[in-house]
């Protein structure tokens, strides 16, 4: 067989290697860690949004059989400091205000669900029994639950010492914005609002801590997206050397950003294990998760767009408010509205852009990361504004987008915000998506449907997904983290390879895709490469599986380490065979002559020869590489959806959903497709169903999955996916990140489709989720305005 005939492994649509153990029931999540004598933690949580804690008495609870103890803030004083995010200066804005987030509420509670006391008992049943027996007395205070109300003078203060409720205000203006608006043929403006929602992984948060007094070592299992960061934070908070903290992320049941934080509960569980000398476990229940984990994407965007008569965008202006809740996420400040702003110029040539982004404190749970962070909201605003402008100018909305899109020959394109979009296929994705859905024929179908009393509509959202920030970009947004990743590739003596990653998977398929990258580079079979992840004791340092960065940053590290190891193998084979390295290649685990495919030496024999010092290579049989990606890497996509709106019930049904996307070189199209379908499902949830509703007193009204509604199999259509592959000219492998994109497009595309369906009423959707109640209100308002006008 000629060497060239070997099928490529990297880029192949192969089944995932991690699946059989899950399917056979052998996966082990944090609640499955087999430890004996583990104590369970349950929390007493505040039922008030804002209150002074007058008293807490745990004595009755403490005396119950099976209860180890009850802890409150008083018991932690002097021993466990509150979490406090370091000051970080965001580009273009004032510093982010810091606040203390007590591990257990101290003196004051600031949101419904805030942990007030912790009980440790022999099992969870007894711990929850004991929570019921804690006596407490809270003096309720006036709460501020609405972000706009929180800005008003005299509003109750979430953090008394601030004097107002502003975490941060950032303002930027680039280009002649005022001039562009003055000279525009058309200006459109709208106020958009998003409902607070959350990532809702099916596995809740959870952790187990075990401390050995003899060695002084803490082992900490957590359902986390960033074991190495968590290790540093546990070390700092518990005053243990990092070398004596081992964090293990076992199988993780989904994260989507929510688990890319360090939580007060985790710090407390570590502290309890140290104090008690016994393993301690906390598995969050779903009510805690909904009330007190990390919420997301709660914003009001006032957007304006100025355009010329032919639809050319002249400028965009935005004022963005973001309801951050009581505390900022940890260990970095919440930068959600800044990301929203960054997404608003999208794939378009926008010569002038100004925004102001305000992060506001309220008496609600904290806002954190969730797939796409602020991007879906920025895309919703811009894509709605383009449709409004097109309608006003009498232009086709697709034509209006096409006219403004960055063309292939304009890359690398420097945006008005100064970032460089390295490559892309914006027009190609738009056209392909429109063709697939049958855009040209849709209007006649729509007209026929309307004659039959059915309201169908089509909506487009095009966007650029910002992925894999480099170190400097992360740090300019606030987080003191690196953008690089590292990986170790080790050759075993039987010719197998082990790949150790700094990042861990929450379902994204790392065990397959990074094995593909290493196997391809080393010339091994996929089955001969095993990926190890999620254990700080054995993996090289990494940062976080978030920001759509694993393929780019970790992929680059794996390619780099594998490439160095391959070069050493070829050099060793060259010494043994006396053939020049350039005449050799490795295919299927065998070093062959490149010219005719003739076998030179199997990798397993070569590995043994190297290990025994017989191949002139006395290094360890492994390579570790650290890969720093470009400042930003951009994927692009167009989503097109058709919907039917029932104007009697307010129900919106997605009929067809098409995604044409470009994430550069794909590592495994099966995994890419899965990420897109799953991301779109989450985006549909955000657009139509999911909302954490608080009343005016800050009481959470959607505290169970009976009230908070993620989409089910009846709600999510099969996404029709078209791929373009424009490799990044800058990343190793040409990869671009794509983990979040699926969730970025749906709010904009669906809002546009609903507007199109309801065009006969002149309804303008401005708020998501577009629940039946909101849709009916839209129709009613439009009808009454029309009647009033007649």
């Amino acid at each position, binding site marked *: 067989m000629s060497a060239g005939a070997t099928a490529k492994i990297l880029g192949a649509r192969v*089944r*995932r290697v991690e*699946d*059989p153990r*899950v*399917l*056979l*029931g*052998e*996966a*082990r*999540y944090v*609640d*499955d860690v087999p430890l004996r004598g583990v104590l369970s933690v349950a929390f007493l949580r505040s039922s008030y949004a804002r209150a002074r804690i007058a008293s807490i008495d745990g004595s009755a609870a403490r005396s119950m*059989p099976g209860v180890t103890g009850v802890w409150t803030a008083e018991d932690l004083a002097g021993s466990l400091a509150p979490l406090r995010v370091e000051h970080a200066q965001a580009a273009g804005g004032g510093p982010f205000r810091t606040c203390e987030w007590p591990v257990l509420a101290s003196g004051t509670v600031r949101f419904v669900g805030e942990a007030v006391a912790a009980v440790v008992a022999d099992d969870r*049943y007894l711990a929850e*029994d004991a929570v019921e027996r804690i006596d407490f007395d809270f003096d309720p205070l006036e709460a501020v639950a609405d972000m706009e109300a929180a800005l008003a003078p005299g509003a109750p203060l979430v953090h008394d010492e601030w004097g107002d409720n502003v975490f941060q205000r950032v303002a930027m203006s680039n280009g002649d914005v005022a001039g562009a608006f003055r000279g525009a043929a058309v200006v459109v403006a709208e106020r958009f609002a998003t409902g607070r929602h959350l*990532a*809702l*992984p*099916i*596995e*809740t948060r959870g952790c187990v801590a075990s401390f050995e007094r003899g060695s002084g070592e803490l082992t900490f299992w957590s359902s986390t997206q960033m074991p190495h960061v968590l290790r540093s934070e546990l070390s700092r908070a518990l005053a243990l050397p990092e070398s004596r903290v081992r964090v293990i992320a076992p*199988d*993780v*049941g*989904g994260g*989507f950003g929510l688990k890319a934080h360090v939580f007060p509960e985790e710090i407390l569980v570590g502290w309890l294990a140290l104090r008690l000398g016994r393993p301690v476990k906390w*598995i969050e*229940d*779903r*009510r805690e998760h909904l009330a007190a984990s990390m919420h997301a994407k709660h914003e009001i965007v006032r957007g304006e767009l100025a355009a010329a008569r032919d639809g050319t965008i002249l400028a965009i202006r935005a004022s963005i408010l973001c309801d951050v809740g009581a505390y900022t996420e940890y260990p970095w400040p919440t930068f959600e509205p800044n990301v929203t702003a960054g997404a608003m110029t999208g794939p378009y040539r926008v010569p002038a852009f100004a925004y102001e982004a305000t992060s506001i404190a309220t008496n609600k749970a904290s806002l954190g990361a969730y797939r796409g962070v602020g991007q879906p909201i920025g895309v919703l605003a811009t894509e709605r504004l383009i449709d409004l402008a097109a309608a006003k100018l009498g232009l086709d909305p697709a034509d209006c987008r096409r006219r403004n899109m960055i063309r292939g020959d304009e890359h690398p394109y420097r945006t008005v915000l100064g970032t460089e979009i390295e490559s892309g296929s914006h027009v190609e994705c738009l056209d392909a998506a429109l063709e697939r859905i049958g855009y040209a024929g849709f209007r006649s179908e729509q007209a026929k449907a309307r004659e039959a009393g059915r309201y169908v509509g089509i909506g487009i959202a095009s966007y650029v997904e910002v992925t894999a920030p480099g170190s400097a970009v992360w740090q300019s947004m606030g987080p003191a983290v690196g953008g690089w990743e590292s990986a170790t590739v080790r050759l075993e003596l039987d010719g197998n390879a082990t790949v150790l990653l700094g990042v861990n998977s*929450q*379902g*994204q*398929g790392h065990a397959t895709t990074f094995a593909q990258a290493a196997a391809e580079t080393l010339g091994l079979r996929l089955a001969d490469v095993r990926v190890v992840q999620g254990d700080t004791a054995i993996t090289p340092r990494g940062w976080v599986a978030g920001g759509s960065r694993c393929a780019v940053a970790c992929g680059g590290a794996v390619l780099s380490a594998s490439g160095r190891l391959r070069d050493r193998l070829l050099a060793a084979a060259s010494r043994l065979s006396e053939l020049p390295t350039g005449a050799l290649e490795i295919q299927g685990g065998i070093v062959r002559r490149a010219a005719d495919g003739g076998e030179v030496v199997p990798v397993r024999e070569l590995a043994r020869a190297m290990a025994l010092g017989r191949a002139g290579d006395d290094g360890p049989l492994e390579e570790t590489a650290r890969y720093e990606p470009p400042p930003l890497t951009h994927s692009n996509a167009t989503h097109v959806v058709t919907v039917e709106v029932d104007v009697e019930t307010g129900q919106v049904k997605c009929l067809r959903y098409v995604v044409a996307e470009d994430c550069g070189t794909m590592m495994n199209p*099966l*995994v890419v*497709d*899965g990420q897109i*379908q*799953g*991301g*779109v*499902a*989450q985006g549909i949830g955000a657009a139509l169903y999911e909302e954490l509703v608080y009343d005016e007193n800050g009481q959470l009204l959607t505290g*169970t*999955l*009976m009230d908070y509604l*993620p989409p*089910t*199999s*009846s709600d*999510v*259509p*099969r*996404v029709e996916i078209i791929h373009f592959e424009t490799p990044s000219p800058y990343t190793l492998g040409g990869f671009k990140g794509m983990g979040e994109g*699926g969730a970025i497009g749906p709010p904009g595309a669906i809002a546009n489709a609903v507007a199109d369906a309801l065009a006969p009423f002149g309804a303008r959707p401005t708020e998501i989720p577009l629940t039946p109640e909101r849709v009916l209100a839209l129709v009613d308002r439009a009808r009454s305005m029309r009647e009033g006008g007649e």
Partner: protein
Amino acid sequence: MEFQDRRTIRLRVNGRDVERDVEARRLLADFLREDLGLVATRLGCEHGVCGACTVLVDGASVRSCLLLAVQADGAEVGTLEGLAEGGTMHPLQQAFWDHHALQCGFCTSGFLMTACDLLASNPDPGEDEIRHGLSGNLCRCTGYANIVDAVAAAAKAMR
């Protein structure tokens, strides 16, 4: 203590007889996971919505977070651990692998058990019937399409 009422229960779990003394308030899910070590039954909400804890009780899919262990006294209980025969995957497991019907895997056990019940009562379901049959299980990763395909493929393989 009012909750410390204990009962002895006898049941068959994955084809094996089990006799245990349990607290009357103990959930079937906790009994399976903690007392029997059958941890493939996952807990996602503990209030009967997400379906991750779905098991078969006398062949019918039920939420083991809404049932007490004592209610399963005398019953035949099936969990994911009993689905494969030896090392050979059940057609549903095979189809889930072939169709990339799982990502994080946390909901997968529940989907497989629900699908077992679905296919037992309807060996040849159409797509709408599959979607309806699975609509009581939440998956946050896959967006469902591949799960629907996998169940259809398994149904075909099993006919």
